[in-house]
């Protein structure tokens, strides 16, 4: 009834390759997050302060990123642009897809963060002679950062997990690499079990590091 024999040896032999692929996963996720934070911040500020075509663009971005499957967003940068003759490398497809998605989600978090800071904080800053830039960077942003810190951590975890969709556009990050070895050796269960453990460890490391950093950053 249960005639499957586990063979872990091939998995163990390709473990260095898997770990290398895991680094690639982490790299693309971190890059997408950095870009996502910068773009998300811009999108949030546009949605809070601007009118006209820019507002329309920012709103559309956020709506699409949040309300369509992440896989479709990835496919857009792959097959979508491909059908217009613009062929990106698998790495770029995943990076752009992830960035698009993260920026959209983070934009909404940032917007909520900005709205949570009372106007009177800016008035108080300006009354001390600070210019608008100083009031924003010294008073508003640090407080917003604390509000969005945990959402950013969650988004980072999500970026790592979502990058596994990369294997569907031929990107050999952790999942793509696993798929490659699994189909070559037919040890499908073993490979994906080990890879699941690697994902789990990465996520736990991110959460642990985030918690540690939070106790250092936020003393109030």
């Amino acid at each position, binding site marked *: 009834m249960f005639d499957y024999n586990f063979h872990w040896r091939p998995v163990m032999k390709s473990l260095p390759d898997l770990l290398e692929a895991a680094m690639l996963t982490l790299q693309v996720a971190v890059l997408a997050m950095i870009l996502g934070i910068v773009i998300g911040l811009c999108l949030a500020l546009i949605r809070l302060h601007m009118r006209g075509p820019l507002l329309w663009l920012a709103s559309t971005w956020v709506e699409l990123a949040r309300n369509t499957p992440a896989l479709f967003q990835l496919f857009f940068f792959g097959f979508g642009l491909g059908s217009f003759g613009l062929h990106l490398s698998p790495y770029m497809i995943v990076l752009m897809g992830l960035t698009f998605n993260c920026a959209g989600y983070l934009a909404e978090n940032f917007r909520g963060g900005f709205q949570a800071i009372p106007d*009177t904080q800016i008035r108080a800053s*300006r*009354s001390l002679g600070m210019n608008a830039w100083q009031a924003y960077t010294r008073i508003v942003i640090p407080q917003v950062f604390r509000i969005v810190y945990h959402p950013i951590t969650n988004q980072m975890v999500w970026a790592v997990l979502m990058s596994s969709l990369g294997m569907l556009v031929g990107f050999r990050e952790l999942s793509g690499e696993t798929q490659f070895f699994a189909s070559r050796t037919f040890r499908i269960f073993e490979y994906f079990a080990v890879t699941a453990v690697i994902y789990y460890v990465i996520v736990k490391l991110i959460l642990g590091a985030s918690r540690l950093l939070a106790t250092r950053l936020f003393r109030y």
Partner: protein
Amino acid sequence: MIEIHDLHKYFGSLHVLKGIDLNVEKGEVLSVIGASGSGKSTLLYCINGLEPVQQGKVVVDGTDVHAKGTDINKLRQQLGMVFQQWNSFPHLTALENVALAPKIVKGKSKAEAREIAAQQLKHVGLGDKLDVYPSALSGGQQQRLAIARALAMEPEYMLFDEATSALDPELVGEVLETMRMLAEEGMTMICVTHEMGFARDVSDRVAFFHQGVMEEIGPPEQIFGNPQSEHTQKFLANVR
């Protein structure tokens, strides 16, 4: 000296200040009283340029606050302001709250700014709270922190917008005490207040505002003892 000439302020079509003329001399303490919505806060915001004006002008030590070429951030260093909601910066310690503006606005060194901050916090009785975050301070202490923060810019004038009216009654005294101390030190102050005792005892003049008009101004004995305007009489009868 603060000179206000024929000042008009509108919020959209709402005419909030209807031609205010007022001079405040160096060293003077002026209390501003009046019903809610009469334009008292708006007057203060127009004085330090937090609100634009539609007609007339405000001149502080010879500089027109609302003129195009005015460096408003520089001018505001002369005009400390304390708000009804105390507005401490929650992510900074008491010391950092006070040291920040001297450092980034006035360009003081870090050590100098901290020195000034510690001194001002001692001045308002918070010398033992330097490294405490605002969340651990009472409302009265946070309001004194806000006063120290404004004083650290070494302003020539202090504007108080109902500095005590958001406080629990038992905390009002300590803040009024601090304001009284400043007055005795010779600070020029404009205090919007509901504390009639403070207005009577501390100020040189009291101005009564009614629906955007300064109906009456004079020494406290006159305003409280022998008010001329009917609206002043009614207002004072109600608050007593």
